[in-house]
């Protein structure tokens, strides 16, 4: 039965989204800009809500982290790690309207994660610096070999090295500087080691720093520590409705391995929550002194600082706006402002989960894109899985086995949602084709 259904949907897809008579609502036609685009058999392996289809725009492009799409539909992709000369950022172009990228060009000699388009500029980061490139009216980089270096000298000590970026409406750029530590222990990741008091990591990392988008060579002294107590934020986005910065924190690891007398393996798999925060200037989210327990709905004193799994702490630390299961590793956050998707998605948040490793020996989870409904810049309901199946496995026992790991999100000019994968280098495009 299922096979028959797949075959049928495949037939419909091959017939072309724009021409199939079965796609009844005419308004679902108008949102698909290019009738020549073919969704793929079984939606490129993704499980999606009814009415959504997916295709792979490109494969094997490298460690694809954050992505952005121009008004013309070109996709910029930031690659991480060691990159080939002039291939730190890729531009993917669909030259014949079939939805696939036929032309791939590159620029930049640095690996990194952050990439965003804002107000005529492409911003991209290495693990220590942020650059920007002016775009012409076709969304092309005018001077690929001469970016403006706007921020330099940021801490990069292996761990949590990604420098993700987003901008507000006033010309400020926000940069995550992840903590080079799990829980600020005297000896990082070592069983029983105590937490440092106060945690010195917070002086230069473990928070979000604000800089000017148009000033050259800024470093710590030129920026301000906008928010602190954030262990590592990879996904962040500006919410234009509440005019506020939202971030996704990667919660701490290894409660069981480090404190086996307090936490079981099961506890470790479920605590602490991955958390979304709405930030205001000066906020403190509490790392490393506390973590958020998703079952107790409380901020709990970290065991490194004398916690026993129950003692509450962090009175001055902000509460999360949305609470997700432990260790899923949110690598991207995107507020959806398009008109293509059904109304419930408008202004809501998509979150790309890279997928866990710290749930072991329990099965790993995540490897998905979640959705949170928002109204007037505030979350209004429960989060749900939007796109799943990236791992290609029923059960992920070891992280190495996962085929694809979501790492970036972008919205196309027609309202399509793009998802990058830094494991196999696949760029997905998710389209709503109607019921």
């Amino acid at each position, binding site marked *: 039965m299922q096979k028959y259904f797949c075959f049928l949907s495949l037939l419909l897809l091959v017939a072309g989204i724009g021409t199939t008579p079965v796609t009844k609502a005419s308004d679902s036609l108008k949102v698909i800009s290019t009738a020549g685009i073919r969704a793929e058999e079984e939606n490129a392996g993704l499980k999606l809500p009814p009415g959504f289809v997916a295709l792979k725009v490109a494969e094997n492009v490298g460690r694809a982290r954050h992505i952005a799409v121009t008004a013309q539909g070109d996709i910029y992709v930031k690659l991480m790690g060691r990159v080939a000369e002039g291939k730190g950022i890729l531009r993917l172009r669909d030259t014949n309207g079939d939805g696939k990228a036929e032309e791939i060009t590159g620029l930049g000699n640095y690996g990194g994660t952050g990439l965003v388009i804002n107000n005529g500029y492409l911003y991209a980061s290495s693990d220590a610096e942020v650059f920007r490139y002016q775009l012409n009216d076709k969304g092309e980089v005018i001077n690929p070999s001469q970016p403006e270096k706007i921020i330099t000298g940021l801490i990069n000590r292996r761990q949590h090295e990604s420098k993700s970026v987003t901008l507000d409406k006033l010309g400020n750029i926000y940069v995550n500087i992840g903590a080079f530590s799990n829980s600020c222990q005297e000896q990082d990741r070592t069983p029983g080691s105590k937490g440092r008091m106060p945690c010195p990591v917070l002086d230069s990392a473990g928070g979000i720093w604000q800089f000017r988008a148009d000033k050259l060579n800024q470093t710590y002294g030129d920026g301000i520590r906008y928010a602190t107590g954030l262990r590592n934020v990879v996904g962040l986005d500006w919410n234009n409705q509440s005019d506020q910065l939202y971030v996704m924190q990667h919660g701490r690891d290894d409660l069981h391995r480090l404190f086996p007398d307090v936490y079981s393996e099961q506890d470790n798999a479920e605590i602490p929550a991955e958390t979304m925060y709405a930030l205001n200037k000066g906020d403190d989210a509490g790392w490393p002194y506390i973590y958020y327990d998703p079952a107790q709905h409380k901020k709990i004193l970290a065991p490194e600082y004398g916690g026993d799994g129950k003692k509450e702490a962090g009175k001055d630390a902000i509460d999360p706006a949305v609470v997700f299961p432990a260790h899923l590793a949110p690598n991207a956050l995107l507020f959806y402002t398009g008109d293509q998707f059904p109304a419930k998605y408008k202004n809501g948040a998509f979150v790309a989960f890279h997928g866990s490793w710290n749930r072991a020996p329990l099965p790993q989870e995540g490897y998905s894109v979640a959705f949170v409904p928002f109204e007037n810049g505030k979350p209004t309901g429960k989060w749900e899985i939007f796109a799943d199946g990236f791992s290609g496995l029923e059960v992920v026992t070891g992280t*190495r086995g996962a085929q694809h790991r979501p790492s970036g999100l972008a919205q196309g000019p027609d309202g399509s949602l793009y998802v990058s994968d830094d494991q196999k280098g696949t760029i997905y495009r998710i389209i709503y084709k109607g019921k």
Partner: protein
Amino acid sequence: MKRISGSIALIAALMSFQHLPKKTGPTKSGKSTVLITESIERGKIIYLQKCLSCHQVDGGGVPHLNAPLDGASAVVGNDKAKIIRIVLNGMTDRVEIDGEYYSNNMAPHKDLTNRQIADVLTYVRNSWTNKASAVTAAEVKAVRAKNK
């Protein structure tokens, strides 16, 4: 259950061997095969408690974060002192390992006994697709003595 009673028998057998003069490496004799099997069994318990979180159930590590032990050239290599030092001191070198870099910090494990380090390394050298000679407590002792 069967496995456990089997292990108890092996532990008893092993205890008696421990009074014998120590051999420096494995031989083809039946006695050392029993020793290795038992060492692997004990090493597995250490692995589950101390290493599995990062190196994973399948020894595959986590891409770009925690190095894999399964199929790693240093893990099955002849330079046992190198991997003994890594377990003792941890590893935060950011050196290339089989063509890749890993960004997490591996904690030191100086609190493990020589026997425990020998067991866990014998386990990782003989698990998943790995197959290599045992590491002995004497070898760990020698490396620890020279360790900074």
